[in-house]
């Protein structure tokens, strides 16, 4: 647990030292969230979540349906308005760090009947480089194709996106994020509803990214694969339940606290857990 510690019993003084320490830690992390609260209407979807995502890590955000996982990710990206809280990316405010973030939205969030080709979608990842009227050079196209190749889709560049399977759509989104050449990758349910081959292709790429000293954060729903895929985990259910290395944090007790009665203990027994 990486909470900024002073033992709770010791007084109720919010000191400037603690504040400074918190800022310093936020600067060291790839992504630091402080007191993030998001509310749609009258009840908070995410309440006062603090979380730190260290550099070079592969992190899963885990929690039950409706626990605010995707909302937390979107709040971190500034897509949904925060009721309170701050986001720090590599020690900088979000707006100044846009070039270092890549985002993979949920597959279902777009209209796949849109009239465009696979390669055009991947080229969207180069937007911040190209700008409004920047010329598309052969080198840009090559990079886009290389990103497609990395997710095993090199032969699909000219396809209409409406012709892709769900897994292929997810791979195209990942290729677009790769084209952004970022240091921090935020993925919203990248494994939801994809085939086994795609799941393997995606996790391989994510592990490569981590090996390249980049940071990857995934909203993830499949408890069975957490220990195999990730090295850190953030458990949330509107509030943060726990965060830390999978080895110490992905425990039956923490899962029970996150999922409550919704997760039968029989199910927990079958999971590969930390302890």
């Amino acid at each position, binding site marked *: 647990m990486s909470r900024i510690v002073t033992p709770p019993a010791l007084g109720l003084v919010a000191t400037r030292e603690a504040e400074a320490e918190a800022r310093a830690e936020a600067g060291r992390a790839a992504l630091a969230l402080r007191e993030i609260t998001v*509310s749609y209407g009258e009840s908070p979807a995410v309440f006062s979540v603090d979380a730190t995502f260290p550099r070079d890590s592969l992190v899963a955000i885990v929690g039950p349906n409706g626990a605010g996982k995707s909302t937390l990710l979107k709040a971190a990206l500034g897509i949904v308005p925060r009721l309170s809280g701050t986001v720090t990316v590599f020690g900088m405010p979000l707006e100044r760090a846009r070039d270092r973030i890549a985002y993979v939205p949920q597959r279902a969030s777009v209209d796949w009947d849109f009239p465009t080709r696979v390669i055009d979608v991947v080229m969207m990842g180069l937007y911040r480089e190209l700008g409004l009227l920047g010329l598309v050079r052969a080198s840009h196209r090559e990079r886009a194709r290389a990103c497609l190749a990395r997710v095993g889709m090199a032969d699909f560049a000219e396809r209409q996106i409406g012709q892709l399977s769900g897994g292929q759509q997810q791979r195209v989104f990942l290729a677009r994020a790769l084209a952004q050449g970022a240091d921090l990758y935020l993925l919203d349910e990248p494994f939801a509803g994809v085939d086994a081959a795609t799941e393997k292709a995606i996790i391989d790429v994510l592990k490569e990214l981590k090996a390249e000293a980049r940071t990857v954060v995934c909203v993830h729903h499949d408890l069975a694969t957490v220990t195999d895929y990730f090295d850190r985990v953030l458990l949330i259910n509107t509030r943060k339940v726990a965060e830390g290395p999978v080895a110490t944090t992905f425990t039956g007790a923490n899962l029970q606290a996150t999922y409550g009665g919704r997760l039968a203990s029989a199910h927990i027994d079958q999971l590969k857990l930390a302890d």
Partner: protein
Amino acid sequence: MSTSLSVLADALLLQGGYNAALVAIGAALLGIAAGAGGTFLFLRKRALVSDAIAHATLPGVGLAFLAMVAFGLDGRSLIGLIAGSALSAAAGLFAVEWITRRTRLAEDTAIGAVLSVFFGFGIVLLTVIQTQSQGRQAGLEGFLLGSTAGMLFQDAVVIAVGGVLAIAALVALRRPMTMVAFDPGFAAATGVNTGRVDMAMMMLVLAVTVTGLKIVGLVLIVALLIIPAVAARLWSERTDRVILAAGAIGGVSGYLGAAISAAAPGLPTGPIIVLVSFALFLGSLLFAPQRGVLAAAIRHRSFQLRLHRRQGLLSLARSEPIFDPLTLRVLQREGLIRTDRVATEDGRAAAARALRDERRFEIAREIHRDDPFAHRYDGLTPIEDVMTPDEIAEIDRLVNRPLSVGAPA
């Protein structure tokens, strides 16, 4: 001015002559049918399909006129024009459904295309009629924006009877239509033929539309189907009450609008009726008790302040730094922290209480984990509001004991 006021008073009190009274009553009946019928459409989230239906009536009006003249009849017969408009409106509705089902185009595109193309073709027919009738006024322009001036007695009767029939159909079909509008899946599971009910609903909307053409006009009749339903929705969460309220709002709009229009015969009737219903809508939007703007604004601000206060107190209790400026302001204003952000005596006490309640709620959530009620343990409502004293006492007993997380509930 005083004369027009007295004409208005006469019209309101149904003393402006037999015709004016009948028109006002017809408009009121029509408004009731449109308001209540439109509610089903609105609840089914298909409000704007009615716009396509309404605009698609125009070619039917034109063709019916031409056909009647060709057969040597009076082209202006309201019944004949209504029949023609119903046919072309049905064709428009069919076109919307066909395009949506059989092509990749979405329903909104289909609605827009049908309403504008049918309207355009209708305008072509109107210009044909204008040149054919050579100076004799066909009076079909009145169907665009509505006109009660010079309305014949039998026309007023047709409209009033149409309104009564539509209301009768509504009363007869209210149960299946409510079920389908509320939860089509459930309705289908209980054996309701949702396709047929939807069709009946559309036919009802179509009937209301063509009946109201002469009074409200095809450009704006959609307003009478939508606005009362939307306004009524603001007042209640119960379907039956929404339908009744929508009928009432529609009826008042039709009645007042027709009466005002009788006092100012130069103005088209449709826009007046629409603006009356819009005024009723605005009042509802502002002052409705739950969904109204005022109520929501007050609620939202207090929610936000409660949230920040709570969050700040928890941070104080856990000795975590507070960054959020609003949180700091809220705490300072209540004297819970000093300007240098150090907690005051009151602040410490409140923070301790907040932490205690947070712990209590945590345990309560643990105990009631499957209870849908548990979402109320949001930490923002005072715990005394959601739990009885003995429940709190029981929880406090658990607070003082280390709770083994994951123990059977």
